């Protein structure tokens, strides 16, 4: 054993640790809500203020809650993916949560880019968002038949996320 063996081993270990640390994405904060019941709320719907929406209505179904806003740039990137998969009939019901938006802006956005949602709930002041731990739009929650959050996508859903994470999990939960 050379006298440089130990320093070298320690150095290699450190480099390894740093490499792992640098490749982690600090923007992706694991949600403490995974495995917990989706927080209850009741807010007006985007398209019709007179009608309310509450997650209770979705009990018994696997569904997605997609948080979006007309001012959110990444939502523009994500939206066509949701529209495409919804049109192909591959997605379970998707409920939109229009987060801290203006009603006209939200409606205009849907008219322009397509509306893949069963409905959109209107979270004008972001209160629902706070209960769901939303800190960067878009975010998407996959909720099972019992109303438990099973998966959270932070940032836009890409076709890859859809194929590798969301669809397999939906299939499994739908059984």
């Amino acid at each position: 054993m050379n006298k440089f063996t130990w320093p070298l081993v320690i150095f290699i270990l450190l480099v390894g640790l740093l490499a792992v640390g640098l490749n982690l994405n600090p923007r992706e904060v694991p949600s403490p809500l995974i495995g917990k019941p989706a927080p209850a709320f009741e807010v007006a719907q985007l398209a019709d203020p007179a009608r309310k929406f509450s997650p209770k209505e979705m009990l018994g179904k696997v569904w997605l809650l997609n948080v979006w806003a007309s001012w959110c740039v990444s939502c523009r990137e994500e939206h066509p993916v949701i529209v495409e998969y919804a049109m192909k009939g591959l997605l379970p019901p998707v409920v939109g949560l229009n987060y801290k938006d203006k009603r006209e802006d939200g409606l205009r956005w849907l008219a322009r880019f397509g509306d893949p949602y069963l409905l959109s709930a209107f979270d004008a002041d972001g209160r629902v968002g706070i209960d769901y731990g939303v800190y960067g739009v878009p975010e998407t929650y996959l909720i099972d038949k019992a109303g438990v959050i099973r998966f959270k996508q932070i940032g836009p859903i890409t076709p890859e996320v859809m194929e590798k994470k969301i669809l397999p999990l939906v299939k499994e939960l739908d059984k």
Partner: protein
Amino acid sequence: MKWLIAVMAALVLLAQAALAKEAAPLAEDPAVEQRMVKITEELRCLVCQNESLAGSQADLAKDLRQEVRELIKSGKSDDEVREFLVSRYGDFVLYRPRVKPVTYLLWSGPFLLLIAGILALMRYLRRRNRQLTEAPLTEEERRRAEALLK
């Protein structure tokens, strides 16, 4: 002379008025505000992650500060307010990590390193000491030294 004093007084008053406009608006309840700042200073803003919730200008941080104010007003304790945020955003919002099995190493790491350092130093010193203490000359060595000195 009198008018000069009057003008100066007016200017001073004006300046004060201008300064008053720049000052931060007084919170409705300073006690609530103080507690809110104390709590949020120890919490991380999730949008700009290197800022505290107290200092961040992100919209979410503003909303959360408002939420904290309301929780305080509704009579929640500091711990309950922190718990409210942790239950939504996870331990990540805490600048001071909680002591629990996953964080044992984090908390004890520096002390473990210190102890390891002290042990290594002690070992090194002891070994060096042993090398420094001169072994008495053997008979053979003494004779050779004497021969050289003659």
